[in-house]
């Protein structure tokens, strides 16, 4: 079937097999490989993207379901050379190590801050419960999200 999706502000129109998952469409058809696949049970959140502004695990959505929607991946977050505040905070606070969960984690954090612009540390932990990271122990991810919200990070 034919799906038309606006991806990172650019209109795409592609023929895909009906059962194509959105994440495979992004990665294999459109070549946007930042969004990763970490599981097959909608548990890890590595594939999180925004669909019409809402965070979605793109391994659990068919490309067909995103037909007509606007999708944002981490590749679409920075404005030219200027990093999105969440990207900048992840770097500044060492919120990533191997980087595999990071694109999904950043998109989930962007969505979290959209809904709750001044989250407490507990809010951040709860909001990111569906995004797994094996490297950081989450501490610096929480720091990064709090910092991206403009709040002081205790040291």
């Amino acid at each position, binding site marked *: 079937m034919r799906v038309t999706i606006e991806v990172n502000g650019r209109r795409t129109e592609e023929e895909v097999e009906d059962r194509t998952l959105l994440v495979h469409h992004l990665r294999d058809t459109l070549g946007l490989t930042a969004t990763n696949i970490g599981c097959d049970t909608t548990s890890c959140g590595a594939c999180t993207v925004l669909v019409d502004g809402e965070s979605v695990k793109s391994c659990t959505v068919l490309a067909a379901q995103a037909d007509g929607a606007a999708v944002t991946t981490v590749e679409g977050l920075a404005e030219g050379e200027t990093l999105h505040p969440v990207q900048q905070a992840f770097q500044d606070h060492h919120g990533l190590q*191997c980087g595999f969960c990071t694109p999904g984690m950043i998109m989930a954090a962007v969505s979290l801050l959209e809904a709750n612009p001044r989250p407490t540390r507990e809010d951040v932990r709860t909001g990111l419960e569906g995004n797994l990271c094996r490297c950081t122990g989450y501490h610096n991810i929480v720091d990064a999200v709090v910092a991206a919200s403009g709040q002081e990070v205790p040291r």
Partner: protein
Amino acid sequence: MSMMGTRVVRTEDHKLITVGGSYVDDLREPDLDGAVHAMFVRSPVAHARVTAIDSREAARAPGVVAVLTAADLDLDPPGGDHAEPWLAGDAVRYVGQPVALVLTERRYQLADAAELVDVDYDPLPAVIDLDDALAGTTLLFPGTDSNVAKTHGKPFDESAFDGCEVVVTRRIVNQRVAPAPLEVRGAACAWGADGRLTMWLSTQNPQLARDAIAGGLGLDPTAMRLIAPDVGGGFGAKIGADPDPVVLGWAARHVGRPVRWSETRSENLTAMTHGRGQQQTITIGGSRDGTVRAFGLDVVQDGGAYPRLGTTLLPGMTTLMATGTYRIPRVEAYSRSVLTTTTPTAAYRGAGRPEATAAIERAMDLFATEIGMDPAEVRRRNLIGPDEFPYQTPTGATYDTGEYAAALDRVLAAADYDGLRAEQTRRRAAGDPVVLGLGLASYVEITAGDAGGESGRMTVEPDGSVTAWTGSSPHGQGHATSFAMVLADQLGIPMERITVRHGDTDEVAKAVGTFGSRSLQLGGSAMRQAGDEVIEKARQLAAEAVEASVDDIELNTDDGAWQVRGAPSGAISWAQLAARAGDGALSADVWYSDAKPTFPFGAHLAVVEVDTGTGKVVLRRLIAVDDAGPVVNPLAFEGQRHGGLAQGAAQALLEEMTYDADGNPTTGTLADYEFISATELPDFELLDMATPTTLNPLGVKGIGEAATIGSTPAVQNAVVDALSHLGVRHVDMPAGPQRVWQAISDANRRV
């Protein structure tokens, strides 16, 4: 001013946060054009004879290029009594063992075709319980007379405890867990027209992987190029290469096309090696004044179906490190590695040392409870003192340096230990259903325990920039930043002008790589040694350039320039020197061979709340000293500690790979496996301490695994401590609500 010890933001990050890493499955290399996709057909049964494989229907499925089985493979089979076949031939020994390989044109055709491969399994008894495995009623390998594949140490001598006033013994479990890096295993490969195989593999050790895969394929290692691109975590389970990529390399040659492979997470949880998996009998003896006089550790190591590092390395590390941070005169440490019809075990963050530490730290608490002494006080009375180093343990380790009591005291002070004890007492007295538990762990571990060397190479380019190559290929640790800092500090060249490369065996032919917290000690020291050699070459050249004696020439690291001592005017820059020297003259290629293990140490305190009505445990605080000597980059150092703390807490409270009696994995998906999340962890409280080693030029020890080693028993001890007033003396890991509730209810029944 030196940048060593400053918080430098990683150079790796920009790519990872903007366009994402280049993990194996992301590669769009032209060499991989026209690649077929691969999926292994894996055994769904734990133990069976394979009587027939019918792949005819699968071969006719859409897009199928080939269905390959052991009968097709023309590779020499691995040797030995417990040989692990490339693909299962006449028998399977664990759920997840590869039986066939399906190759298709497109990714989505893989699963369709794989489920059409018809394998006849004639079931044999599963061997899951370690006592059953030891009994050997069912042998995994019929030609052998036992399931025990290896032993470490010698059988237990009970007389070690003669004369002890108090002896406590307990059987405890250090459960099997899944390493679960976020990136599963993956590979891609292509044969060149020149007959060389290029393989991209998610591995911690490109050179070891190259040697293993080339060996399996009957190739000379020079006939293979192995590239580790960005690697999405490893935690020990990506050391070297598993058998799977050998089959992929062979298949690519067989069908004459490049091959790509990425397993699913559910495959990963049963087909990637597991960690830990020990049953331990701990016995501790001493006197009522708190002096420990003897310790016994009798280990049954679950090796899984085929001997890998779990059988060979892990229990060796566990027995070596049995006495921990304590001065214990008599030690009995013995281990039997036994094969079971489960996923093979191998390294997982700590690899044998968390198991050792859990054993001794649980034993110290059992001893403290038995003699009615505070666990902090019992520890303090037995810690090896700062003036006793180097300290030779009865098991044969030589600890380099340590300040064990200082680490413990620092943690106790920062936590307000006495205040917490008072709060614990208050809650108990008030009958509060939510009780408080304090868990201590004092630990020492061994890093760079392999004592192998590492490679380091660098060259000053004619523009004054530096390209460096390390054999220590990272998988998230940030070596490119840390090693650039080491060179920048040494050479006075800004780190933005230093590029650290790794991971390609055509660029670095000889190396060991990343495991056992060895990278900075060995890879970093190799860099330092290469830098030293280049500095000496540069000194000669600079002396000639400024027409001065070599003895009068110095490197001004503030300016990155060579000058006559004390005379910055007329200095010559690295760029000028490199241009003058000519291409490649300012280079060094070293093998750092003076590699000795070091012994990082620390102390952790965990504070938990346990709801005695439900058994639910909440980890409230985790306070840690992790002393690994001087710190190059505190940002990266703290990151390693955070990750380690989380994985220790995960094992203590949540994670376990389980099997039913028939050998079916019951936690084989991420929906079932209790991978720790952000909500289950507190903010970590890190305390600084840095005791250098004298065993390498940087004075550093390893930090990759340390925090896991301390936090696992600290959290477990906290759970037991919370319930000690009820008479609970031990709770096995993971201390989930069911197990904790059961322990409480058993204790109540006893009262």
